[in-house]
């Protein structure tokens, strides 16, 4: 009781919003990729590449905004490698995704050599007048940095795009049945490459949010599985944008809560608390995996327009 009372629920909810943003961005990107029928397991690699690209650019220019742009570009460049492998060289998507992660981890720690122990320029909080002064709600919802709102807007955007637009319809068609989409004259490979690039940019942004806002500093391997959790989140969300948001809040909540419990000095060794986000991920997968029917039908299959 003592311990729980030392945790401020308002602060907890506010930091939940922050903690959920990186995986929300990464998962949203991966959602679009998977709806196009591509399984990119390289999210972790793209995230950490984004984390260092964003960090380095932000430190060198002093502008977090430039950092975020660089992070998106960095993630997209890495995703482009994946696209080349899977869409042109027709490599196995699982193996290519793993390669991307291993490559990204190596690349980021090389790029990050000179950035350990530096503080990045602070990302400004966007206090919304009046709204952020509201009791409780103001602190929880309306006093965050721009990226939090950007991520939320992106959820709405992706949702609307998939549900209401022709582009979304075509994207889903490519993911459902690439042969049929090809037969109707849609450029399967081109559409998929665009989706993969979008996924990479989102993962990069998510990574940069970690290194620039959430932590905020650069350490090797700092994503520590966030990219994989984002992948699990897409399964959790049954490939629906709205539910990605729900899942991200759940995971954000768990990780914030365990950090708070650590800080509150609970009588459990820190290591066991640190396991909790990963164990929760497994638990969620167990609960959500029974129904696979929502997965795009062409997910992970190689497409080659032969004859």
């Amino acid at each position: 009781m003592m311990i729980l009372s030392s945790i401020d629920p308002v602060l907890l909810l506010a930091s939940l919003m922050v903690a959920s943003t990186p995986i929300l961005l990464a998962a949203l990107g991966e959602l679009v990729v998977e709806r196009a029928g591509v399984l990119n397991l390289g999210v972790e690699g793209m995230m950490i590449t984004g984390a260092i690209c964003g960090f380095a650019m932000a430190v060198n220019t002093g502008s977090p905004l430039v950092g975020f742009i660089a992070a998106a570009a960095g993630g997209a460049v890495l995703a482009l490698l994946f696209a080349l492998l899977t869409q042109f060289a027709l490599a196995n998507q699982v193996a290519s995704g793993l390669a991307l992660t291993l490559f990204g981890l190596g690349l980021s720690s090389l790029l990050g050599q000179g950035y350990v122990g530096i503080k990045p320029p602070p990302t400004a909080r966007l206090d919304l007048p009046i709204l952020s002064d509201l009791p409780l709600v103001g602190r929880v919802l309306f006093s965050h940095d721009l990226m939090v709102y950007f991520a939320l807007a992106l959820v709405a955007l992706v949702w609307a795009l998939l549900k209401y637009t022709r582009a979304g319809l075509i994207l889903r068609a490519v993911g459902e049945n690439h042969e049929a989409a090809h037969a109707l004259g849609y450029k399967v490979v081109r559409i998929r490459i665009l989706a993969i690039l979008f996924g990479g940019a989102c993962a990069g942004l998510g990574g940069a949010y970690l290194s620039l806002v959430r932590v905020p500093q650069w350490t090797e391997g700092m994503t520590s599985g966030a990219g994989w959790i984002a992948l699990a989140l897409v399964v959790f969300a049954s490939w629906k944008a709205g539910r990605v948001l729900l899942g991200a809040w759940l995971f954000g909540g768990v990780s914030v809560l365990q950090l708070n419990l650590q800080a509150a000095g609970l009588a459990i060794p820190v290591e066991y608390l640190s396991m909790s986000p990963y164990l929760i991920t497994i638990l969620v997968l167990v609960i959500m995996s029974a129904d696979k029917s929502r997965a795009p039908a062409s997910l992970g299959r190689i497409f080659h327009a032969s004859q």
Partner: protein
Amino acid sequence: MTGDLLTVSGLTKAYPGVVANDAVSFVIREGEVHALLGENGAGKSTLVKMIYGLVKPDSGVMTLRGAPYAPPDPHRARTSGVAMVFQHFSLFEAMNVAENVALGMENPPPLRDLAARIRDVSETYGLPLDPHRIVGDLSAGERQRVEIIRCLLQSPRLLIMDEPTSVLTPQEVGILFQTLRKLTAEGVAILYISHKLEEIRALCDHATILRQGRNVGTCVPRDTPARAMAEMMVGSAFAAPARTDREMGAVALEVADLSVAATGQFGTSLRAVTFAVRAGEVLGIGGVAGNGQDELLAALSGEMPVAAGAVRLWGEPIGQMGPAARRVLGLLTAPEERLGHAAAPDMSLTENAILTAAAREHLMHRGFLRWGAAEAFTRRIISAFDVRTPGPSTAARALSGGNLQKFVIGREVLQRPEVLVVNQPTWGVDAAAAAAIRQALLDLAAGGAAVICISQDLDELMEISDRFGALNEGRLSEIQSTHGLSVEAVGLMMGGAHGMEVAHV
């Protein structure tokens, strides 16, 4: 309406190792039904893909209404007034009818307006469709309606139909023909691809016949005997399989009250299927695609175990057994999909022989494989069934459809089955190979085995089976002797017109 709509001259397309089309020329006139006739592999599909902009010809030119026509992609073909109904539908199962139609249109209206237009058009042409239904839940005939309506909404000048009747009951074929005649009366030309001669004689004004990629002749089907067209198509005459009168033995396989839930989201459940087949008998099971054929095969092969008593071999319950145990007892099967189901594409023929014959042909000893014996067995299949291949180490995917099918059937037949179940044994196979496969099935039955042939080819079933039943939405019709069975009766057993209305012509 006798102007030339589409002229094709000298179209050539070569793929590595095969010339799919060699200088093909013909003319389609406005408002006519033009047949493109040929065996599997004659180059029909490549030809229409060039017309629809999916494949670019190596040489040759086309004109549409006198203007040069060279569509770089299907979008351009559609805007030029060319539409196509695919044989293997270009549909998206998880989406609804309206979304599927929208995907095949150039400038679809908003989905709500589109739904209304789908209702209008489908009623005008006697092809009722609910725009909000999920395509995965539709029958094969209904799916074809989706494709046709998608084309009609764009007011095409030329409608290409690739083997449209292969998924329809005889009654549904009748309705389709009425729809097509209504269209031609409105001036739409139809390019009708088929290998079924009677259909072409009933429907088409002109026919172009392809053999091995070449245009080998044109004719007016109404004035040409079917026999003459068949000879042009095949190049030579084939002996029809020889049936000998034979004694029926005891009941070999008995299926009683077999009910199985659908496999996968859009599968069909089997409902209380009951039949028996005797030693020496060929039982034909017909039905339109997607009415439970795959599920029936899976229940018989053991891929989908069922209640023990639902399947009995020589009176013993085997329903709960897996495929390997059933093979040991003498129940062998050959599924429809050759590459990926009956055979592993990237594995050699020897490895593929082990796939089903490991135990029965003693190709392994205490779990260790006897590669020498496996290769000898493979060679036996190759020579006995005239499989054209460089040798046993060739990958399965390198074989042509007909040769691989001969290999698959041969692999099972040479294991001396007591009961053999085949699904679509001659689908996509050239006439010579098909005749050989049918003969092998008849010989097997003559030797005392029970044969169950599941097929969508009614002619085939009438030719080889002693008794016939049809699957319709997972239910098996009453089984009747094929002797003197009329096409109408067969059609009704297959489910008649599946609730379709006759077009208001």
